[in-house]
C-alpha cells in the first residue's frame, strides 16, 4: 500500500509516478525474457542506477521487489552486498580509484590524495555540487596500465597526478565523454 497523501520532506525519495511504475514493469519483464524466464537482479539494478542517477531509491526497490515476487528486505540485502550498487544518493559521476596491490606499487596512494585535494572530499563522499562521488575500488583488472581509475564506464590508465584536473574537467563539462 502506498501512502499517496503523505507529504514527504523534499530530500526524501518521493512516491513513484505512474510513469515510474510503467518503466519498472517493462524493465523487469524484458529482463525475464532475456534470461529465459529467470531474472538477473544485477542487470536490473545496473539499469535502475543508470535511470535514477547512480543510486537506487527505496520506493523503486520496493516496487521492483513486488514485481520480482520477493520481499523488499531480501532485495535490500542483495543490493547492499555489492559495492557497485548504492542505496544512498551519489553524484552525477562515480570515480572508482583502484587501490589494490599493482596500482599501489605504481602510485595509487598519490593519485588518491590528489583527488581528495582536488575534489575536497574523502572516500565515500560526494562533492557539494553533486558532480562527483569518490570511491576506492578493488582491482579493476587493467593492471597493464596501472595506476588506473574509472569514472562511470570509462577507464583511465598510466595516471599521474598532473592528468587528474584535465580528466575531471572533461567529465564535468562533457558529461558522457
Amino acid at each position: 500500500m502506498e501512502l499517496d497523501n503523505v507529504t514527504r520532506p523534499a530530500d526524501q525519495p518521493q512516491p513513484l509516478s505512474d510513469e515510474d511504475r510503467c518503466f519498472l514493469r517493462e524493465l523487469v519483464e524484458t529482463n525475464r525474457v532475456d534470461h529465459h524466464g529467470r531474472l538477473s537482479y544485477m542487470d536490473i539494478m545496473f539499469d535502475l542506477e543508470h535511470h535514477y542517477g547512480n543510486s537506487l531509491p527505496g520506493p523503486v526497490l520496493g516496487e521492483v521487489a513486488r514485481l520480482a515476487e520477493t520481499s523488499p528486505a531480501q532485495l535490500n540485502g542483495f543490493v547492499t552486498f555489492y559495492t557497485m550498487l548504492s542505496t544512498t544518493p551519489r553524484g552525477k559521476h562515480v570515480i572508482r580509484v583502484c587501490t589494490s596491490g599493482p596500482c599501489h606499487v605504481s602510485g595509487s596512494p598519490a593519485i588518491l590524495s590528489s583527488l581528495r585535494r582536488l575534489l575536497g572530499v574523502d572516500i565515500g563522499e560526494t562533492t557539494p555540487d553533486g558532480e562527483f562521488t569518490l570511491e576506492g575500488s578493488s582491482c579493476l583488472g587493467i593492471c597493464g596500465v596501472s595506476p588506473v581509475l574509472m569514472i562511470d564506464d570509462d577507464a583511465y590508465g598510466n595516471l599521474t597526478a598532473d592528468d587528474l584536473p584535465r580528466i575531471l574537467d572533461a567529465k564535468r563539462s562533457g558529461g558522457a565523454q
Partner: protein
Amino acid sequence: MKLFSTQIVVPVDSNSVLQGALEVKHVLEETIARFNLSSQVSVVETGALGIYDQGVVLAVFPDDVYYGGVKPTDVEEIVTEHLLKGRIVSRLAIDRNLSSRRLVEKETGLSQQKIVLRNAGLIDPQSIDEYIARDGYAALAKALAMQPGEVIQILTDSKLQGRGGAGFPTGLKWGMVAEEQSDEKYIVCNADEGEPGTFKDRLILEGDPHSIVEAMTIAAYATGAHVGIVYVRGEYFMSIARLKKAIKDATEYGLLGKDILGTGFQFDIEVYRGGGAYVCGEEFAMLESIENRRGEPRNKPPFPPQHGLFGKPTVVNNVETFANVPPILLNGSDWFKSFGTPSSAGTKVFSLSGDIVNRGIVEAPFGVTLRELVYTFGGGVKGGKHIGFIQTGGSAGTVLSDKYLDIPLDFASMKAYNVSIGSGVILVASNDVPLLPFLAEVAHFFWHESCGKCTPCREGTLQIKAIMDSLVNRTADPASLQRLGMLQNLLSDTSFCGLGQAVPLAFESALRNFPEVFDQALAESHVPEASPEEA
C-alpha cells in the same frame, strides 16, 4: 572478395584503448583513404598482443614489421614512408621478439606454444569467420561425433587442471557431473576475475570470446547440460559486449541453440554480471549471486558437481581452463602433456604488473621460472632497479624475495617451496617500494572484501588490518607479531571458505622472507598512551 596486398593489425583491448588505440586506428583509416590506398591496405582490429609498455602497437603484414608508441601524428609518416615507399620507419619500429608469442616459441624451440592465447592478437575477436578459419569450432564438431565419455577421457588423459587457482583436474570434474542423474545440469564459466593483478581472463574474453563459447558447448555435450552461464565482472564492459556478440553470432551459425550442427544437441549461453564483490570468484558465492542472492559461500560438501546452481549438478570452470579445451580435443592429450612438467601439463597465462619494463600478459609452459618471467619476458625491473619483493598468485598469494627467482613454477614446486601461482599474478615491486604499507593495503583489501558470513574472516581481517596499520605507523605493541601469527592460524584453519583461508598467505610468507622489516618496525614502535575513555 577483395584482395589486399597489405594488412595493418591494431590490437584493441581495454588496456590499449586507454593508450589511444582507437584514435590511431581512426586516423590510420582516414590517412589510408586520403592517399587512395583503401583498395590495397586493410586495417584490422584484433585482441591483445599482450605488451603494454610499448604504447599503441601496429603490426604490418606481410612485412612483419611492428611499430610501437604510435601517436595519431605518427600515422602519416608510416603511411607515406612504409606503405607508399616501402621504407620502414625505424624511429618507431620495435623488436617483435618482445611479443610473448615469439618468446615462448624461442624458449622451447616449438612452434605451437601459445595454447590459451592462440588467437589473441591474430584474429578480429568480433568475427566468427576468422575464428572458424583458425580451426574454430572444429573441436566442437569433433566432440559431437564422439561419445560424451570419450570427450571426458581425452580431457582426463590430458591432465588439464583448473586454472582459477585450486588446480582441480578438469576431466574428473566433468566426469562427476556426467555421472549425475538429473533433469537439468549447468555449465558455468567463472569470469569474475577479481584477484588483484590478474587481467588474463579479460584479455581472453576480449581477444577470443568464441573459444569460451566453443569450450562451454563441448562441456555441455560431455556432461549432458543444456544451459550455460558466464558470470563476468560488472566492470568488464568490453568483455561483456564481445561475449554477447560471440553468443549471438554462434547462435546464428547453428553452433549454439536448438540443433547444434544438425545433431539435435541443444545448448544456450547467458551472460550474468557481477556487482563488484571479490568473494564471488569463490564458486559457491558466484552461484549464490547468479541465484539473485548475496554472494556468500555455501557449505561444502556437497560440491557443485553434485549440488550446484539451483541445486543441480554444475560444472564451474575458469575462463583460462575453458580456453584450453578446444586445442586439447583437436590435438590430443599427448600433445598437451608435451608442454609443462610431469606434475603440471600445459601452459599458464601470467599477468605481469608493477615495476616491470614490459607489463602485460605472457603465456609460458609450466616450469618457467620467475627469473624468466621477470627478466626475459618482462624485460627486468623498471629503471634498472633491483627487486624489492615479488607477490605471486595475487593478494591471496605469497610475497617472495629474489631468492625464489630460479624455482620452476608448477603445481609440485608450489607445494615444495610454499610459492603460490594462483591465478598467475606476478607483481614486481622495486626496492623503492616499502613492504609494510603494501601489506597494509593487502590487509585492507581483505577486510573490505570479506563477505561477513563467518566470524574468523570478518573479525580476523579487521584485526590483521589493525596490526599492519600499527606496524606502518610505528605504534605496534610488542606482542603484535605473536598475535598476527595466531590470527594466521585461526583464519587458515577455521574460515568458512577459501577467501578467509588464503588471507594469511601474504603475511606468513612476508614474515618468513623479510623478518627484518617487521623487527625494525617493532623496534621503532612506541605504543601510544591509552586515552581515558578506552582505559
